[in-house]
């Protein structure tokens, strides 16, 4: 038996899954000031007279990290950057406590300039004097050689409460994102740590030994104590929960579109062969582009409660919400009002909807139903256009080999899954516009909690071997070790698999959920002069986002 909990902006949902069926659901109001109290409430409500001993695990999807960032409830962070040549430091400065070092490594991880101890200690002194306790250390190309970052850490370790390292955030290249990710990780460190402690304390009051998991941005889970090491991994888990929810409710293994239509926005995700797509570099939060692995989604300001206005002979939908639909006493007409007038849904006060939409109809000089039809069509079309844009973006993703260009892999959706309040009235028209059959899964009102409950543990590992330098780097582990000049790709692949497995188990994965996949596999001969001097091997393995093993496709939830 699994308990899945999703903390949303308004409601917190809980679901109990037993033998892969939804046994119970519950919904309480979210108290953002005291999330622990919200957990307690929703847990009490749903557990009722259930036998606690039957509970195998609890999975939480929370807005904790996201809200800390959005609301600025963060630590002041000192940033120490070893940026080397490239972009001007002014473009890399993330806050007023950003300092630059002269030491750096190059793209092959070769140390070009040594770290200057005096430089580091004077920066450290200044940061301490400012009252800073949290520091991020980030080197350009530190994923190629983490030594520089760890070396700096050794120098200042005793000066601060917490140090975040760039190379631990991701194995991918992108220095500005690495800076932003490390910064956010350090910034939410205390808030998240406190939260985890509180959750653990609370859970102990129910049943001490029950494993608790947190949902991450990539739609995978992590044991809660492990997640505290990299809190930045838990940002934007809300959209991830929704996508995993649709995945678990959809029972589909082909390309598909997933829509979560809410009051203010519609979130779009794409499944490729039944697997949710990841952001190519990482998720973006509050303008910070990060390296945090996350499910690819696109949000558009069209929802059931979007404000509909009329300006310059044009009907404008959204992008903001100015209150509920007029049919529920809101100040402006909304797509929901249009759907009520058209008889697509039977909620609220139809007369109030007609008055609100009537104001626009008068200006346009057409009937109220006609205006409602226009509003409804336009809303659907805006969503469909954004979906098509997103698919085009994915299909036009640059590739770097002739093989991939010729292969020309393309997403072509075979189904549309819609959840959210206006799913029923809108799905049919959206399916028409997008040219695929639509489905509205059952239990979609608690899709997020189901998604959290059924998500498997995910992780990835990057291995780089440079047989000329005779060095192998396991990036995310911060490990470097000597290898022979005869080291081969095959050997690298098996090390990758082994390490990935260890990592996954440490993060709380079940043995049967470790479904590995090699996602990068490149070997280059290095030639200097006219001789081959070594090989540059680049491997990456992952456990991709998906549902826990044993989830029966044929009997989906």
């Amino acid at each position, binding site marked *: 038996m699994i308990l899945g909990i999703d903390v949303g902006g308004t409601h917190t949902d809980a679901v109990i899954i037993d033998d892969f069926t939804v046994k119970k659901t519950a919904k309480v109001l979210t108290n953002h000031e005291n999330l622990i109290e919200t957990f307690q409430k929703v847990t009490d409500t749903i557990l009722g007279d259930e036998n606690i001993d039957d509970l195998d695990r609890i999975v939480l999807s929370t807005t904790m990290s996201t809200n800390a960032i959005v609301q600025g409830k963060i630590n002041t962070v000192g940033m120490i950057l070893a940026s080397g040549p*490239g972009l001007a430091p002014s473009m890399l400065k993330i806050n007023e406590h950003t300092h630059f070092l002269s030491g750096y490594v190059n793209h092959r991880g070769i140390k070009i300039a040594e770290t200057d101890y005096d430089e580091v200690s004077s920066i450290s002194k200044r940061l301490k004097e400012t009252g800073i306790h949290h520091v991020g250390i980030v080197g350009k190309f530190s994923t190629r050689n983490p030594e520089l970052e760890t070396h700096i850490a050794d120098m200042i370790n005793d000066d601060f409460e917490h140090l975040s390292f760039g190379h631990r955030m991701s194995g991918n290249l992108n220095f500005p994102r690495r800076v932003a990710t490390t910064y956010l990780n350090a910034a939410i460190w205390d808030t998240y740590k406190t939260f985890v402690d509180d959750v653990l304390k609370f859970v102990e009051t129910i049943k001490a030994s029950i494993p608790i998991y947190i949902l991450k941005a990539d739609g995978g889970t992590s044991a809660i104590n492990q997640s505290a090491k990299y809190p930045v991994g838990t940002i934007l888990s809300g959209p991830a929960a929704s996508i995993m929810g649709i995945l678990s409710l959809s029972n589909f293994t082909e390309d598909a579109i997933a829509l979560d239509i809410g009051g203010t926005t519609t979130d779009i995700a794409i499944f490729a062969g039944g697997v949710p797509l990841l952001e190519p570099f990482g998720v973006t939060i509050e303008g910070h582009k990060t390296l945090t692995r996350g499910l690819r989604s696109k949000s558009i300001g069209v929802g059931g409660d979007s404000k509909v206005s009329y300006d310059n002979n044009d009907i404008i939908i959204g992008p903001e919400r100015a209150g509920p639909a007029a049919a529920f006493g809101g100040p402006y007409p909304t797509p929901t009002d249009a759907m009520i007038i058209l008889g697509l849904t039977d909620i609220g006060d139809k007369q109030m909807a007609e008055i609100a939409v009537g104001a626009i109809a008068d200006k346009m000089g057409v009937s109220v139903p006609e205006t409602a039809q226009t509003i409804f069509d336009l809303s659907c079309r805006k969503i469909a256009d954004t979906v098509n844009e997103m698919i085009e973006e994915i299909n036009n993703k640059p590739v770097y080999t002739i093989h991939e260009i010729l292969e020309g892999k393309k997403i072509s959706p075979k189904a549309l899954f819609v959840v959210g309040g206006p799913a029923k009235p809108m799905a049919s028209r959206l399916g028409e516009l997008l040219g695929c059959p639509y489905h509205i899964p059952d239990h979609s009102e608690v899709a997020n909690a189901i998604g959290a409950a059924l998500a498997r543990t995910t992780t990835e590992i990057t291995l780089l071997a440079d047989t000329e330098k005779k060095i192998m780097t396991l990036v995310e582990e911060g490990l470097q070790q000597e290898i022979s000049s005869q080291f081969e790709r095959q050997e690298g692949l098996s090390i990758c698999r082994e390490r990935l497995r260890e990592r996954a188990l440490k993060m709380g994965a079940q043995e049967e959920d470790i479904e590995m996949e090699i996602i990068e596999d490149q070997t280059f001969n290095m030639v200097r002069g006219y001789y081959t001097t070594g090989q540059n091997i680049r491997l990456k393995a992952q456990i991709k986002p998906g549902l826990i093993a044993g989830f029966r496709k044929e009997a989906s939830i």
Partner: protein
Amino acid sequence: MTKPLRKTGLIFFPAFDWAISSTHPEREERLLYTQDQVFEEGLLDLDNIIEYKPGMATVDDINRIHICVPDAASVTTESHLISAGGAITAADKVLQGEVDNAFALVRPPGHHSMMVVHGARGFCNVNIEAIMVEYIRHTYGPKRVAIIDTDCHHGDGTQDIYWHDPDTLYISIHQDGRTLYPGSGFPDEFGGPNALGATINIPLPPKTSEEGFLYVLDNLIMPILDDFKPDLIVNSAGQDNHYTDPITDMRFTAQGYAILNDRLSPDIAVLEGGYSVETALPYINVGIILAMAGIDYSYVTEPDYDPQAIRQSPEINQYIEKEVGLIHDLWNNREAKKASMKYNSEFISRTKNVYYDTDGIHEKQTETIRVCDDCGGLLTIDSRANYMNRIFAVIIPRGSCSTCRKKGEEIFNTTDQKPFKYVYFQDRERDVFLVK
């Protein structure tokens, strides 16, 4: 540095699965570290840098400018079509106004490919800039185009293709041909009789550094461009003038390339050579991208950059100043010189031997141009490769006059086919390509 930001398109195609041979300079590894540096700098996250996937050039695109023997499909592989296609994508994005400028960071290169193609020479099979330029003219109408070739090797292929075209200014700045492949590119190579002055060669002595290149840019190239008034500037952006390049002997730098692109401000840049894959290319390419996008590039330097250590000698300063003066005079007097030229025949021929080093082919070619004041002139080519494959080609120029067209059609129709394996007819005005 406060420059306006420009929207820059980047077509990045490192062809990680293609090489001429496994230890050849033109191999899989060539743009690997460039990719690392571009990704690590996060350039693709910048709002004014947009990456595009390259399209694929077609046989028609190639036939618009080349005479391939026996045909375009036989002398190219997918890699060449993507490389030329990448240049075309760059051109489309600029000419459709999606971006202000674009950089086709693609391989393999093309500037040693001449009009007639029997095989590969100087690592090139087809001329990707020329294919792009003719695509532009075909799609977006006639344009005056200036190609500034900053590769260390003389772009003898591009020169050959545009030798008779008064609407294409080809300026090559390169290491002196007496010291480097392909051994050509001297100031007296100045364009054909109908296009005198539309080819400018600026050979530089070995060990020329930033100072010399930028002197040539400011005192010769920019003034010539001011006179020529091109609709479009293309940088044939070879990167082998770098002080660490293994197959050349110059002392140019990443900073130098960035400054050059900043001042030249090309509409389109296309990568050509450059084989210092680890210590030069990552920095040069980041420098060029930033310069094109109008972003501060002053921190882009090689790890061992020391301008003093690679400074050129005073003798080189003097040599270059003198040469720039001479070439500038040549340019200023081009029209007088053209007017003074007396030809004792309507048709002028030149014979040349072309060696395809990459494929080991010898070609002997006789090219005949009709002296014409009204257009680029009717061109015929009689070419024989390895003493066997003899072909004949009739080429009607873009904007052809009625006489050149009539004579060209007549020659094609009446040429005795017997001595030739193939006879080609390329009508650039009407986009017709025939083979018999």
